[in-house]
């Protein structure tokens, strides 16, 4: 497997890449029900850093990731990616498409589409032609060791294989920032291991990675681990 997993991600000078440090400045997120999911979070993640976020369920990990991916807006405070205030970006679709790769724990794929189409679909509306999209998707699927299975439907794959498709898709538009919300949360240890190896490859290409996990073993693989509790970043062991 490991030799099959070739280099993932792109060289740091990849086309369209933008600086991608993550900067949370006094970020508060209160959900409509009144839940204070993030309570004045200050956080800086440098370019190329591999960071895991851990903490008990409901402490605000996913909320933080969603704000970084511009899927939601903070109640107050500022989220900056690569120095750009997300609230000032007019075209968030383009930001999501080109600047971040996003991986969820489950339901990452469109069930009715073969996995190759799942990967190609995120490249609609980019500079790539149909032919280039197809080639790139083939190449990415080969890199996550799914060559020959491009035309399978998601239901015809194992959970680990589906997460590898999600990684391939997340990298399709050469983002410099990869955000993953418990990507191994529902995998058996062997499948989880393959997925983590892929993250390792991506990281070596200089892509910044923020991965939410509540597995302490996985959290330790990163350059740095951020601990959260009740919407705040805390010191380990607290």
């Amino acid at each position, binding site marked *: 497997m490991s030799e099959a997993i070739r280099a993932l991600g792109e060289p740091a000078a990849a086309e369209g890449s933008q600086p991608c440090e993550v900067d949370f400045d006094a970020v508060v997120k209160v959900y409509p029900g009144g839940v204070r999911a993030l309570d004045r979070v200050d956080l800086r993640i440098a370019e190329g850093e591999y960071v895991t976020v851990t903490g008990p369920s409901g402490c605000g990990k996913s909320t933080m990731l*969603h704000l970084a*991916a511009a*899927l*939601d807006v903070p109640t107050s405070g500022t989220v900056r990616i690569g120095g750009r205030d997300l609230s000032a970006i007019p075209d968030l*679709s*383009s*930001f*999501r*498409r*080109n600047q971040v790769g*996003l991986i*969820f724990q489950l*339901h*990452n794929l*469109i*069930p*009715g*589409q*073969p996995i*190759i*189409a799942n990967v*190609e*679909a*995120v490249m*609609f*509306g980019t500079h790539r032609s*149909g032919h280039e*999209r*197809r080639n790139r998707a083939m190449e990415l699927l080969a890199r996550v060791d799914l060559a020959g299975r491009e035309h399978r*439907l998601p239901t015809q794959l194992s959970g680990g294989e589906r997460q590898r498709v999600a990684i391939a*898709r*997340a990298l399709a*538009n050469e983002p410099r920032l990869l955000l993953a919300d418990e990507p191994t949360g529902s995998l058996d240890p062997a499948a989880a291991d393959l997925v983590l190896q892929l993250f390792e490859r991506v990281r070596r290409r200089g892509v910044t990675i923020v991965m939410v996990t509540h597995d302490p073993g996985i959290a330790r693989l990163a350059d740095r681990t951020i601990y959260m509790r009740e919407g705040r970043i805390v010191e380990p062991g607290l």
Partner: protein
Amino acid sequence: MSFLAYMLRGLWSKKVRAAGLTMAVAFAVMTVVSLQVTSSGLEQSAAAVISIGKADLTVAQKGVSDILSSSIDETELARIRAVPGVSSAVGVLVETEKVSASVPLFIEIGIAPQDLAPFGVTVVAGRPYAADATNQVMMGWRAASTFGLHVGDRFHTNGTVYDVTGIYSTGNAFGDAGAMFPLVALQAYNRVPGMVTLAFLKVAPGVPVTTVARRIDFRLPELTSIRTASQFGRADRNLVFLQAAVNGSTILAVLIGAVIVGNTMLLSLFERTRELGLLRAVGWTRRRTVGLLLGESLVLALIGAAVGVCLSFGVLAILERLPTLSGVLHADFTSAAFARALLTAVAMTIIGGLYPAIRAARLTPLEALSYE
């Protein structure tokens, strides 16, 4: 893979739902097209009367419920001939007769023998009848072949046995499926002495037809001039009502279809909320996700339109064979019918798809992702 291919692949993965929506559109289109084709067929049949003669202008009584109940008397005919610019006017009586159970509506045309040539009738076999004959007839060539008649044979209609003196051709299917009688004899049989149904006019060289038409409409307000089959509704109130009924039914069919399309799209939207949220989360624009939903429906609507047109071919083939309608209904697939099919399908999609599209556009990625 193109966006269209992606869309089609998605539709294929939901075949049953796609087929349901297609059938809904197909039935609405079938209804609309069948109505349209039937009514335009009826209109054509009736309008064909005015196209039998080679005239510049046809004059009928205004406001009659159907053109065959138009009546023009000799004085009016004389006044028509006196209108400046009219070079000749041929008075023609058109009646229908039930010849047999299988021929419930047989066209009988009363016309004086000297008017046959100006009217554009060619005698292809035998000779014309005499002006004062009471038991002579000329058969249209289609009618002759239907009844298996030749010159010298006998033809039974109007309670009389007629000698077939000739076979004629007018170049008009409707006229050639009937028979011609001496005008006086047919007037007598129908007890309308001196009356004709229509007057067929030739306009003097150099005079615009429209000018003459206006003069007739002005001088003889109880009559109306008709130049083309489509103007026919001016004289025939039945056709006006028929067209109104067809339009009403079309609107109804479109609305019912739109509700079905809208309902199906809404269900599909609920079912695919998570999918749409995911696509938005990975960078699809609002426009693209809405475009996917609408595009899918449009593809299905177009397939439905095609299926609907095919179904209406079948339905009309059956209708045409029904004894009560045979001979009356001539399915007439005009380009207008196909345009209507397309318009129906597209209108249904747009009207039905509006609300689901707005709902889809309002979805935020996160809401959609957490949708159960």
